[in-house]
């Protein structure tokens, strides 16, 4: 139950947050998020 609640809160915040951001901000964060999977590998270079 707690997990479902946490997921709902995270999803809700993300949806609400993305509606509050303008297109420029969305693109800014999208570019950052796109690179998140590479942060750990880059740390080892």
């Amino acid at each position: 139950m707690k997990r479902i609640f946490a997921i709902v809160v995270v999803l809700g915040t993300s949806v609400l947050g993305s509606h509050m951001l303008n297109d420029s901000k969305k693109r800014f964060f999208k570019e950052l998020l796109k690179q998140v999977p590479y942060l750990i590998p880059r740390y080892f270079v």
Partner: protein
Amino acid sequence: MADYDVVVIGAGCGGLTVGALLAKQGRKVLIFEQSDRIGGCCSTFETDGYKFDLGASLIEDAGVINWAFERLGTTLWDEVKLTPCDPTYTVILKDGTKIRYPISSEKSAQEIGKISPEDGKQWFAYADYMQGFLDAALEGFFTAPANTLGDMVRMFAKTPKLLKYGALFFSSYQDVIKKYFKNEKIRESLSYQTLYGGLPPELCPGYIAMIPWSEHDGIYYSKGGMIGIPDALLRCGKKLGMEVRLNALVEKVLIRNKRAVGVALSDGTEITSDIVISDINAKKLYLEMIGEEHMPWLARIGVKSYEYSMATPMFYLGVDYKPPLEGHHTLATIPMDEMNGYWWNEYSKNHFPYEQFGIISWTSGSDPSLAPKDHHVIILTLALGPYRLSGTSWDKEKTILMEKIIDYMSKKYIPGLVDHVKVAILSTPLDFERSLLSPEGAIYALRQDVPHTTVFRPAAKSKSIQGLYLVGASTHPGGGVPTVIASGMIAADLIEKYE
């Protein structure tokens, strides 16, 4: 016993700085440079009596550069004849409005106030905030290593003030400018410096927005051209025994038991050394000159994931008249939204329109000796140029592009230009790759957004190969003359500590 204590690949400002500093530590240093001149992007070449700066066209953050010279027992001011530039820059907006930014902060505020009194007052709030960040960054960021999380903790522990400016890393350049300035013309006039971070205003990290302010700390031009800086580093290094070999292309870094032990040149010669330092693009270094077989799997993924920084075509012009320009740097700008649009609709789609914006550097205005009598030198740092052009190639388009850009610049920014051009050389991203061996013509080596900075940028002390160190734009703190010189100081400190 190795031939040298230290071999440096590349005689850019980073390579020369670390070479000279290590020679001062008493080490036997040899630098290999693949081209026939030193300096990398901070260099000067001569054609038909005109001297053109290859890339960098002024000196900012002279204090950082001076630190390197102080460590060498001298000063920047003693080694390089510097001409102060005032105004810092003049901006020509898309609609033709001119705004001057004198070195004096008060005078800049007055100039802004003529267009927007409210923004004129806001200039001081912006200046105060950015000066605070600049002080913190100079104290704790520029010359501190950022290899590990431990380094980052030490950086913030030494300079806790940096934490206050954390928001700058998670907001964009345009967020910061728009926060302080409301007038669209003023915003546009402060837009161009986003490209010093290599990204459009909506993607560029907010801390780059300190540049329009930091330039008010004083900007200078080196008499005889920007090669004055690397020349001075070379002179200092040579006095300490440092050697430099030009026209010597390093093809491979020699690796034995996960340790760099020297380099192999294109002519087959092998030179051994205890330490190898790279002043070339890190992605090229690891993937082509070392080989992924020498790297752990995570590092391989990391290296391949790096994106190259933007490229920018440079247009070198020798003219037989005094151009109607107001100072060393004129920024031809477009509104921030259009600059974002240029990134997505032109640059990202491999287009390069001739209606250009960019930096107009009138270098002979600061130093008349760069051109024959009554002649002048103008260098256009054009907008972002893609490495590949859609449906055609740079080599095919070059001649027609040159004619169209000269015509456009003449009509919009430099009246009379079209009738006075004596020498015109367009250096495309492809030319940059050919002459500087900079992959895809990337001027800052790798992108400079947050996921490519500090611990996420290739480490100054290699984590895969022992005895291998990195300097230059590829490593912390990134691209730009003062920053690559700072990278040389960081590497010299690390080598003193670990080797």
